[in-house]
Structures are given as structure tokens and as C-alpha cells.
């Protein structure tokens, strides 16, 4: 990497050649104001707020899309630049509804923040707010194009990062809007509900479908027993909503808060993750030893990924693990095993899951197998963001809460369960148990680091029981295609498979970077959250799913053994090809 000398506001600095001026300025302790720019995405120069003056150039340039070169000299702030930025903001505000107080992003909006920082007190232009209908067709996210500032992040995320192509700019000029092809409803489009558009939207134009009111009303209902479970990635991110550093582990405080909110029992999705490993690990061993034609095995914990595969790669369905996701497994056991154990009528249970994910809202009702208990196994799924709001509405002093434990028996988890929240985690957890199932011996060191990290596609091999196990891990939906095409090419040529086992998560970094997590995720924040997850793993008493005492108990008392008939009925699902477009 060659370095170049540039001058920013008279200060000489050395930076890598070719990075944008916006990035370079960070090294000179300057955060050039910007709206459309997001570090996850290629610069698109849509908003014009990051303008700077370049020496010897007659016009202002956008810092986000100005690559640095030797000798570049820029001015990033002077009264004229501030005035230009103010005007740009005022123009955006002139076509933006003035609904801040009742907006989902109130106090958490990038446009509102810039407007406050620039002291905008009036808008000297004719107000021309857009009036376009909301799209509330999906179970997961709401699209409110009237609030859209056309920054283009959601389109870039949906097409580039995720390769889903549900969203596109339609029309032109002041008619431009964000919509699926042909102004159809999002639910009839290829949308996989991953919610990355909502996580990247700077304003209130795309957001999670808020179901807190439904949760509150069931918590109030004396005939209902509300039971909750929390996902691995929630515990390292919820704290951010209360000012804690990303990655701070707040598991015990979350359990306490949930009990204060009125949940009768607090379970942990990590228990479900351990159970998923028992079923999926056994499935892997079965395919390796008896059904090699069904290899590679592909993980299915991620509902956005499931939706993607059913739409884009239905021919790969036979390779999908039939094991349900951890969320769904805890749901199924709550209304069967647990209800019987404590003598609760499953009809009276209202089961809520707290997930870092918008697609989980879709999963809880995706098909009939989500009613395996005879009722909808999980009644409602809320995101990390929604739980943060509920805790605040209840006036709970989250930061000063004492820790409390989760409830037995669906609350106990191992380190293997908790790492489901990061990319590579499901693979690592599966390896820990598959090794034991194949060799009857524990791994010497349970840390399997080749699958860790933010790289989009990770490959590794592992020697188990005299065999070479070839694995791949992919995250961020757009990276999946490469892995699947390799498999399909090998299949078509009748060659040896490139992989035996593939883990897929739709969101960058895995669930820690999920579409329902607190706003503002960047790779830096994803890494902090990831470190929190691995810390939770390393401090766990048991680090392999098969050593979870509660898992052993559930099999002993209820399920029998992995892949048993009861397991198949309650803990497994199936997949069907779905059209990309329903209209």
C-alpha cells in the first residue's frame, strides 16, 4: 500500500493512496459532515453535504467520492462551506415531512442530528413534502417513502451487500422514490426481510414493524402467561441503547429487566442454539456417514437466508438442514415440554422472542411447522431496538440493575450456544459437537479460529476421525452466491465437493450486525459486539452443546435422542421453492 502526502486545512498528513478524502480526514481528527455516506457502502455522492474546497479547483468537491492523491490540498471548513451545507440541509428538509416528534427515528435520526448541529431554525424554501403510501405488507419492516431522503443506502444494501434486489429507485427527478419493481408491495417482491435497509436508513423511511403494543397488552392480560427468550446477539448490543460501549455483556441485567416487565419465565435462545447443534450436528454426522449424496449440509438458523434460498436457489433445498432455528426450537419446547412440566395450559402462554433480527418476525409464522405445539409456537418476535424502548417505557434503570439468572430448564446455555450470534459461530459450535459425535472424544482446544472474523467467505479444513472435513462460512447475503456456485459447478462436473458443511448468515458479521440491532453498526461496532460474544463463550462453564446439563435432561425426559420422531415433529421443518415475485 503506497502512502501519499496530502494537506487538510493546512495540516500535512500521510495516508493510503486512493482512500476517500472523507476517510483520510478521520486521520486528521476531522469528521466531515455527511448524510448519504455509510462506511459499509461505496460512496454515491447523493446528498452533497460533505463538500470541501480543493486547491486549484474552481468547484467544491464531495469528500466521500474524492480519492486522495499526492499533493492534494483541501479546505474542509470555512464559513462558505458551512453555508453551503446548511442550504443543502434546508433543501432536503423542504421535502421532508416535519413529523419528528412522532417519527420512529426521533432522537436517533441522522438528518435530525445534522439539522440540530447546523442550527437550522427555518426553511427558506417552499415546503413540498412527499405524500406516498406506506408499505406495511411484510411481517417485518415498514417502508415509508414519504420520509425518504433518497440517500440510496437501502438500494445499495439491498442490491450490493445483500444481492436481493427487492428495492430500486423508480422514476426520476422529484418523482423519484424507493420501491420494489413496478410499485408492488414489498411482500410480493424478493425481499428477504433481513432488515439491513432499516439498519442503514439514516431517517425514518424504513423501520421494523413495531409490536411492543401487542406485547404490553398480553403482559397486562391476567389470563396469559408471558414467556420470553433472548437471542445471543441481543446481550452484547442492548446496552448501547443505554449508553454502554458496544459489546458490553448485559445478560444478567436483561433477564432482570424482562422479569420486571412481567414475564413469568425468562428463557434463553442460546439453549435453543445448543439444541440446534444436537440436531444439526447429528444430521451432519448422518449425512457424512450414510448419505454423502446430501452433502454439503447448509445451516438454516437464519430466516432471511432461508427465504433467500427458497427464492433464489430452490434446487439447493435438499442440502438444507431441516433443523429449525434456535428461536423456533425454544418456542416449540415452551408450549410442549415446559408447559407439561409446570402444568401450564399452552393456550394461555404468550411467547415472545427478543431478536437482533427483523426476519425472525417472519419466521414465527413462515409455515405450518411453526405451529408444531398445536399453537403458534412463538406468538410475537421483537427486535433489540423494540426491547430497549419497552425497558425505557417501563422506567427501568437498566444500568443499575442487579443480575439475575434465566429460568430452568430452557435458560441454561453453553459457550457453543452463545457464539451463534456471530459469523462462524454456528460452524464452530457444530464442530465442537460433531467432533465428539464422530470420535467419542472431546476436542483438545475447542477454539476453532479459522471460521472467526469479518472476512466475507471463510474456508477451512479439519481432520476428524480420519476424514478431512471441508467447511465454508459466508455472511452478508451477497457473498453466498460465490459459495453456492462453487458447489453447483462441482456437482455439474461430477467433481469432489468443495465443502461438506456450509454456514450462512444474511447479515454482515452475523446476528451481531442484525437488522434489528441498535442503529449505527459499522465494522468497528460489529467487532466490539463480536468480542463480547466470544467473551461470553470463554467464561462459560461448558463450551460444547452436548455438555449442557439441561440439554441432556430434555433428551432424557422428553425428546429421547437427536433426530428422534419427537424431535422431527417439534424441532425440524421443511422448505419449498418460492417465486421471486408474487406479482
Amino acid at each position: 500500500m503506497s502512502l501519499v502526502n496530502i494537506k487538510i486545512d493546512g495540516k500535512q498528513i500521510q495516508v493510503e493512496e486512493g482512500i476517500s478524502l472523507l476517510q483520510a480526514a478521520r486521520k486528521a481528527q476531522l469528521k466531515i459532515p455527511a448524510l448519504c455516506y455509510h462506511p459499509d457502502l461505496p460512496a454515491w455522492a447523493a446528498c452533497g453535504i460533505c463538500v470541501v474546497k480543493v486547491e486549484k479547483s474552481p468547484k467544491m468537491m464531495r469528500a466521500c467520492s474524492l480519492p486522495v492523491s499526492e499533493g492534494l490540498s483541501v479546505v474542509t471548513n470555512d464559513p462558505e462551506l458551512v453555508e453551503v451545507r446548511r442550504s443543502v440541509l434546508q433543501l432536503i428538509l423542504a421535502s421532508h415531512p416535519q413529523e419528528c416528534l412522532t417519527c420512529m427515528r426521533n432522537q436517533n435520526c441522522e438528518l435530525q442530528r445534522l439539522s440540530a448541529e447546523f442550527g437550522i431554525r427555518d426553511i427558506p424554501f417552499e415546503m413540498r413534502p412527499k405524500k406516498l403510501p406506506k408499505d406495511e405488507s411484510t411481517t417485518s419492516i415498514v417502508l415509508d417513502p414519504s420520509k425518504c431522503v433518497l440517500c440510496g443506502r437501502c438500494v445499495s444494501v439491498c442490491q450490493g451487500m445483500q444481492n436481493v434486489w427487492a428495492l430500486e429507485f423508480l422514476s426520476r427527478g422529484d418523482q423519484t422514490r424507493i420501491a420494489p419493481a413496478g410499485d408492488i408491495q414489498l411482500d410480493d417482491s424478493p425481499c428477504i426481510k433481513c432488515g439491513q435497509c432499516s439498519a442503514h436508513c439514516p431517517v425514518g423511511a424504513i423501520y421494523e414493524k413495531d409490536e411492543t403494543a401487542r406485547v404490553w397488552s398480553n403482559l397486562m392480560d391476567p389470563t396469559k402467561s408471558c414467556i420470553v427468550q433472548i437471542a445471543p446477539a441481543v446481550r452484547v448490543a442492548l446496552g448501547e441503547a443505554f449508553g454502554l460501549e458496544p459489546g458490553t455483556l448485559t445478560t444478567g441485567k436483561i433477564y432482570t429487566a424482562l422479569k420486571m416487565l412481567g414475564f413469568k419465565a425468562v428463557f434463553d435462545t442460546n439453549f435453543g442454539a445448543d439444541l440446534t447443534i444436537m440436531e444439526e450436528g447429528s444430521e451432519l454426522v448422518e449425512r457424512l456417514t450414510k448419505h454423502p449424496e446430501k452433502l454439503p449440509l447448509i445451516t438454516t438458523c437464519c430466516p432471511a437466508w432461508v427465504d433467500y434460498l427458497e427464492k433464489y436457489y430452490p434446487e439447493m433445498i435438499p442440502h438444507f438442514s431441516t433443523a429449525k432455528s434456535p428461536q423456533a426450537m425454544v418456542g416449540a419446547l415452551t408450549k410442549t415440554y415446559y408447559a407439561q412440566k409446570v402444568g401450564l395450559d399452552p393456550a394461555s402462554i404468550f411467547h415472545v422472542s427478543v431478536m437482533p433480527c427483523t426476519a425472525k418476525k417472519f419466521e414465527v409464522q413462515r409455515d405450518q411447522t411453526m405451529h408444531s405445539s398445536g399453537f403458534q409456537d412463538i406468538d410475537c418476535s421483537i427486535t433489540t431496538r423494540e426491547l430497549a424502548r419497552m425497558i425505557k417505557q417501563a422506567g427501568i434503570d437498566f444500568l443499575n440493575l442487579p443480575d439475575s439468572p434465566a429460568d430452568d430448564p430452557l435458560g441454561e446455555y453453553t459457550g457453543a450456544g452463545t457464539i451463534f450470534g456471530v459469523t462462524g459461530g454456528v460452524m464452530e459450535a457444530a464442530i465442537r459437537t460433531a467432533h465428539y459425535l464422530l470420535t467419542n472424544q472431546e476436542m483438545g482446544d475447542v477454539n476453532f479460529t479459522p471460521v472467526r472474523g469479518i472476512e466475507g467467505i471463510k474456508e477451512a479444513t479439519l481432520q476428524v476421525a480420519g476424514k478431512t472435513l471441508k467447511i465454508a462460512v459466508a455472511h452478508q447475503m451477497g457473498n453466498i452466491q460465490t459459495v453456492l456456485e462453487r458447489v453447483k459447478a462441482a456437482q455439474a462436473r461430477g467433481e469432489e465437493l468443495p465443502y461438506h458443511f456450509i454456514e450462512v448468515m444474511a447479515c454482515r458479521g452475523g446476528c451481531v450486525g442484525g437488522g434489528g440491532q441498535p442503529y449505527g453498526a459499522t465494522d468497528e461496532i460489529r467487532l466490539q459486539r463480536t468480542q463480547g460474544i466470544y467473551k461470553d463463550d470463554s467464561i462459560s462453564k461448558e463450551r460444547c452443546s452436548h455438555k449442557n446439563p439441561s440439554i441432556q435432561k430434555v433428551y432424557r425426559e422428553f425428546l429421547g435422542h437427536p433426530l428422534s420422531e419427537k424431535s422431527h415433529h417439534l424441532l425440524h421443518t421443511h422448505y419449498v421453492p418460492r417465486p421471486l415475485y408474487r406479482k
Partner: protein
Amino acid sequence: MFVQAPESIQFSSELDDFIEEWKNRPGNLIMVLHRVQEEFGYIPRAAAIEVAHRLGVNLAKIYGVITFYHFFKLTKPGRNKIQVCMGTACYLKKGEDLINELENILGVGLNTVTDDGEFSMEAVRCVGCCGLAPVLMVGKDVFGKVTKAQLPEIVAKYRKA
């Protein structure tokens, strides 16, 4: 890619050949869409889906293109397409009066099709013969220095007997 069109559509063999010829060439999408519109008079959704399938282009991209360019139509125009020029010269020569008068005669305004499907009218920018302003086109026929009084006769000429 798994694209299932809600309804199937038949392309003419000429269009099939054209798509085959352009399939792997850069910039093919707009070329193909032009031909599709030539064949159907607009871009039916089933045709857009078929084009997505044949060219391996995402449907979202196709809609991005066909909604960006005014030339592409998403709804079926009338059998006779009347285009009234509102470019600078025709605008100054009261092209708008022609639109108003046509609205009286046809009973429908801009960008709408008459109930019998015979006519639709749209305003266009310069058609390239400003010396003849005000100008209108019916299909591919150009009428220059048009007066309001001539309009009933022009419409009658194209109405199916």
C-alpha cells in the same frame, strides 16, 4: 435464477431473434426494451419479467430503467397515440389549446386512454420540426401548423369506421 411470471407472454419470432442477437452485448437492456415496446405498445409486466429472465437482469433494474425514461410506458396506450408537442416553439404557439380541444373531442385528458381504446394523448417535448409549430403526431404521422378547427377532422380520420 428462479423467476416465475404470473402470466406467460408470447414474443414474436423477430423479437426472440433480436434478444438472442443482443443477449451478450453490453448496453442490450435498453435496445431490447425498445423492441418490446414496439411490439406491445408498452412494456407489459409479464414482458419485463421475461426480459429479466432472458437477459439475466434483475427485474428491479428493469423497472429502474423503464420508469426513468419517459419514453417507456407501463400502461397500454390507445390504438392511435396522439402526441401533442409542448416544446418551446409549440408551447409559444399555443400547443396547450390543442390539448384542451382534444380533451373536449376525446372526452379524456393527458395520459389517459379513451373508453373504446381508440385514442390516447400525451404531451411530448420537441418532435424536431419547430418551423411547423404547433405540431402534433398521430402514430407516425406528423401534422404541422395545426389549428383547433382542424382537430375533429384529424381525429375522425383515425377513428375506426
